[in-house]
């Protein structure tokens, strides 16, 4: 409870004592935006951790060896993740639903086991030291990026492109009958998601002195998926709220340290049962209300509405 009390009574002090947590929330929020884009176009892809790794390693390697300026490293890291997105997307985007999810998990595993843990330049299993990291300065680009990206993605959903995504999500066959080039638009969503994940990876290297290959495995991918599921995917704010909430949860639950994962799991199950549309529903942030309560309310309300 101290956590909330401090957040409410002393926000500056809270920020100073939880800087790393705030930075992690921000990075997770960007990852959540990345998975939102592919979700919005109806694709269940779990490749984000892989693209994140590409962004992270590229950024650190470029700042270690050619010693290019950091913003350029980050840009190239994100773009390389996007390019990898095209390569991965070409074969796997023909798949749908759970098959697409499995194929993208395969990509994450292949990247980790086949490349990162096998190529000397990435430090293999040892990871990479990143002496140029700047944990305090690194928070600034993160905090600036979130509102900008949120705005851009929100606007994007209203363009011709975003409309095509929504149509594909609702019904691919119908979308192509309306003249929408389904493979192309799916690819665009997939690549934008990859670039955003790569960008999150690049930002993360800037606040850590060490790039740890175990950070980019299946568990990270599943974590990103939970942000979207818990937060809700009908609105870009959903995954962001999910990311912030789930990142803060371990801190809030510190007092039950040993049972943290158990409680985490219970909360996830409760959200799925009682609020399948996520914390942020289509109508925005609504109270958590179980279905049976809703039904009772309607029955009571019906005589009035009949008048």
């Amino acid at each position: 409870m101290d956590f909330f009390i401090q957040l409410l009574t002393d926000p500056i002090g809270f920020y100073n004592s939880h800087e790393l947590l705030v930075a992690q929330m921000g990075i997770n929020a960007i990852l959540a935006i990345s998975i939102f884009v592919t979700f919005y176009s109806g694709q269940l892809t779990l490749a984000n951790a892989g693209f994140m790794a590409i962004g992270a390693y590229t950024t650190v390697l470029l700042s270690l060896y050619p010693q290019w300026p950091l913003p350029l490293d980050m840009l190239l890291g994100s773009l390389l993740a996007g390019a990898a997105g095209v390569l991965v997307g070409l074969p796997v985007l023909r798949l749908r639903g759970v098959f697409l999810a499995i194929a993208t998990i395969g990509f994450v595993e292949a990247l980790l086991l086949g490349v990162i843990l096998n190529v000397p330049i990435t430090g293999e299993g040892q990871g990479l030291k990143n002496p140029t990291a700047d944990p305090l300065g690194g928070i600034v680009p993160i905090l600036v990026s979130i509102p900008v990206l949120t705005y851009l993605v929100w606007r994007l959903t209203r363009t011709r492109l975003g409309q095509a995504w929504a149509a594909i999500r609702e019904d691919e066959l119908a979308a192509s009958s309306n003249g929408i080039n389904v493979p192309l638009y799916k690819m665009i969503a997939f690549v934008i998601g990859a670039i955003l994940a790569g960008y999150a990876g690049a930002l993360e290297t800037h606040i850590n002195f060490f790039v740890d290959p175990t950070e980019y495995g299946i568990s990270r991918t599943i974590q990103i998926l939970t942000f979207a599921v818990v937060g809700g995917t009908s609105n870009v704010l959903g995954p962001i709220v999910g990311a912030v909430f789930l990142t803060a949860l371990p801190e809030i639950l510190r007092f039950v340290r040993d049972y943290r994962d158990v409680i985490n799991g219970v909360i996830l199950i409760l959200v799925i049962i009682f609020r399948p549309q996520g914390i942020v529903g289509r109508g925005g942030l609504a109270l958590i209300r179980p279905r049976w309560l809703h039904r009772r309310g309607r029955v009571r309300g019906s005589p009035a509405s009949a008048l």
Partner: protein
Amino acid sequence: MGVLLRLSDVIRHFGGVHAVDGVSLEIEEGAIFGLIGPNGAGKTTLVNLVTGYLRTQSGSVRLGTPAGEVELARRPPHAVAGLGVARTFQTLRLYRNLTAVENVLVGMHPRRPDDTLAQLLPLPPLRRGEQERLEEARGLLRRVGLESERDGPRPAWTLSYGDQRRLEVARALALRPRLLILDEPAAGMNPAEKDRVRELIQQLNAEGLTVLLIDHDMRLVMGVCRQIAVLNFGRKIADGSPVKVSSDPAVIEAYLGKEAEKTAAHVPGSEEIDVQAPARAPAAAEPAAPLLEVKELEVAYGAIQAVRSVSFGVAKGEIVALIGANGAGKSTILNTLSGLLRPRAGTARFDRLDLTTASPDRIVRGGLVQVPEGREILARLTVRENLELGAWVRRDGQVVQREIAELMERFPILGQRRNLPAGQLSGGEQQILAIARGLLARPRLLLLDEPSLGLAPQMVDAVFEVIERIHKEGVTVLLVEQNALRALELADRAYVVETGRILLSGTGSALRRNPEVRKAYLGG
């Protein structure tokens, strides 16, 4: 007026199924062209070939455009749409969670300019088209008779069924198509709604739109189309004006089926009989103490009323047939009797069992067993295993084994193939397996849903022989068939079902001579 769509010798097979087998036809610009044919004739496959959802194996599909003829085969669906070919789907495919207006806006996709940058940095001049598109979308909704503003924005799936059908037409029109393909636009609608669909098609055509209409409702197709092509088993069996097509013997045979060779082939409504036949068959005596008694049964799927106040009975030892065109509600009645669907109103009693509340497994144990449409055998299990599953509800294992052995003897087709996976049997053999499986549940009343569906003529004979035989052995049968003439030949009594109602009833032989039966299938 030139030819807008020209199909030459289009072929598409799925494995051994000749879904579309060398079809050629021409649709004139400005026409309303009807495409009809019994269930499984290949109509929707043909639409999918034209619109790029399926690849043709050979033949050409050419669309006339202002810049000359363009080959459509091998173009992806979105490219075909971009050339001005819009379609609706037989099973509704709306964007369920988008509003009606949003659905129509998506339909404008090919002609909406790319506005990504303009939307990202909200620049008013670049966004001007938005308001106009919104106005146009609302106009299209009003055009098809959908007042979307009436109850505010709400997801499309909450609209009534008829409104959803209309919305699909509006969405297709948003493309400003040159050819509009309507795949069963009136399916599941009541007569008044069908009239509105007919009016809409005629209005759109009067404004210059070419329409390709696929529907089972002969009244609708015969009413609006000047040109009709009839498909059966993937081939075009007739084309021409409605009058010509509806009197074509090949068409009548495709829809009503053919009587077995042994009896004189008379077609209901053919002249010499027409004169004497009463307009309405005298209602056959309803059984006094029926084994199955259905009273004022009403069944609905959401907003679609599939069965309206249907009453009938089956006495012990009878074969009773329910006949009628596709979509009339026959299978719905059977599925309600076996407890798979629950009626909205009415009663259905089998002996002392209330079928409207009893669970499906209780109904099977009570002796009412359904052999479902499409056979539903388990393709990967062997013939023997399929039969053993048919006796699932029984506890007397040894007797079951003996009965299976007997069945194998009675139906040598099954005996010879006892260890083959059932999926390797032909369609007719699978049907016999499905019936044998039904028999193992020891039915007192066997419900057979479309046993001849999709079967070649010799197999139809074999299946009907089996039905006749089990009936002689004392099983009461309720038969649902599209192949009306064969069913009437076999049945003691029959009921003609049309749009969820019982239109006629009578003895099999009386109905066989009744011209009204033909009308129920082919329209008046």
